[in-house]
């Protein structure tokens, strides 16, 4: 095999003088830091803007009609707080508002195990309809051409036009979301899975079920906080 690794052999035995080495490394270090920091400074605004646009696009997609958004987080003890930026381990909820500043719905991040790796999705919840009104896959490594149908298959995406997650008298979800075999959807809380991508579509359903069971009651209880968010007028 003609396979060359860069030679890492020790150099010839010459009495090493440390000053040139330090000088070289320090010089290169300074040069490099300068380069990196200036690039960072140069590109940061564009990157932040693009990231934001990307996220907004997703939010408006799962919350049809929304034109502005506001970010909240749900603390582990069930409180809703305003939040900006990104932080690990934070359950983010985006409130989407229409032109009049009315709450259209909430875009909620959910994640769970897919077929190959972790799936990350964003779904839109309408408090008015007590239903999921949109879903988008944010991150997936599902098998191309098969598992990735959950991002493209129109029949499958149609499940999320109005997926029932209404609460019962105990403020818990009445009918947890369930996946059913393709073509047998009979109830508004069922997800019609994809033939040939059963596993991935079921994974989506399971992630949604688990996430809605946990969060929808919390969200509904604190609905006022999200609506207030718009009144405070802190636009997008």
């Amino acid at each position, binding site marked *: 095999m*003609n396979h060359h690794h860069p030679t890492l052999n020790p150099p010839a035995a010459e009495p*090493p003088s440390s000053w040139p080495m330090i000088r070289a490394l320090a010089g*290169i*270090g300074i040069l*490099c830091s300068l*380069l*990196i920091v200036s690039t960072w400074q140069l*590109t940061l605004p564009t*990157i932040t803007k693009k990231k934001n646009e990307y996220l907004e696009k997703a939010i408006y997609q799962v919350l049809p009609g929304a034109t502005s958004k506001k970010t909240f987080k749900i603390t582990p003890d069930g409180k809703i707080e305003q939040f900006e930026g990104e932080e690990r381990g934070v359950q983010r909820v985006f409130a989407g508002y229409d032109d009049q500043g009315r709450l259209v719905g909430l875009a909620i991040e959910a994640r769970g195990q897919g077929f190959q790796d972790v799936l990350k999705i964003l779904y839109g919840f309408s408090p008015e309809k007590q239903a999921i009104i949109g879903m988008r896959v944010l991150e997936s490594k599902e098998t*191309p051409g098969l598992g990735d149908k959950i991002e493209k298959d129109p029949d499958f995406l149609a499940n999320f036009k109005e997926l029932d997650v209404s609460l019962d008298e105990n403020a818990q979800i009445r009918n947890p979301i369930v996946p059913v075999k393709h073509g047998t959807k009979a109830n508004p809380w069922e997800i019609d899975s994809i033939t040939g991508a059963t596993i991935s579509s079921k994974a989506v359903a399971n992630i949604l079920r688990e996430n809605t069971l946990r969060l929808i009651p919390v969200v509904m209880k604190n609905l006022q906080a999200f609506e207030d968010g718009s009144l405070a007028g802190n636009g997008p």
Partner: protein
Amino acid sequence: MNTDPAHLSTNEFIKGLWRENPIFVQVLGMCPALAVTNSVINAIAMGLATTFVLIMSSMLVSSLRSFIPRQVRIASYILIIATFVTVAEYFIQAISIELHKNLGAFIALIVVNCLILGRAEAFASKNTIWPAFLDAAGMGLGFTFALICLGGVRELIGNGTLLGYMIFSENYQPWIVMILPGGGFFSLGAWLLLFNWMKSRKERLNLAAENSR
């Protein structure tokens, strides 16, 4: 032997494209060659990013070659390469978030692409800036070319498209395996087979020519 300097520099440039092609001949930098070649656009992006890093770091290494003592050269090269990779990464992110997502960690992994360190060590550290640039550009373009070859085959067969344009009819049944990891191995293997075959054919022809002489 042609010792004309112009010819020599062309030679520095051309050799990386074909005769010493980093992937098909030297079998270097396989990780990105396999990982991001499931579409042509990814292949081009990866190829150009690598070329950028290769050219920049080669030139810097070449210009600093008298300044860097032997003992710390590898460390210095890695520092330089890592810097340019970071730069490339931010630029790609600024150009397109989607592309950055598709290439994922493999942009950052250009740092450990043996090709770059290899060129810095084997060529740039021993030559002046201009040959170093030509060498890096040739190698980088050769690398990009190989990536496109791979990406082209994989996207065409695995998705029926090239650069996103449908090549076959709408009804083409794609061979999904080609865009899966397995397909990466198969297509690179197949390209190497092709190169082996051409090489053996050339050797045979040369032999025949020598015998008839």
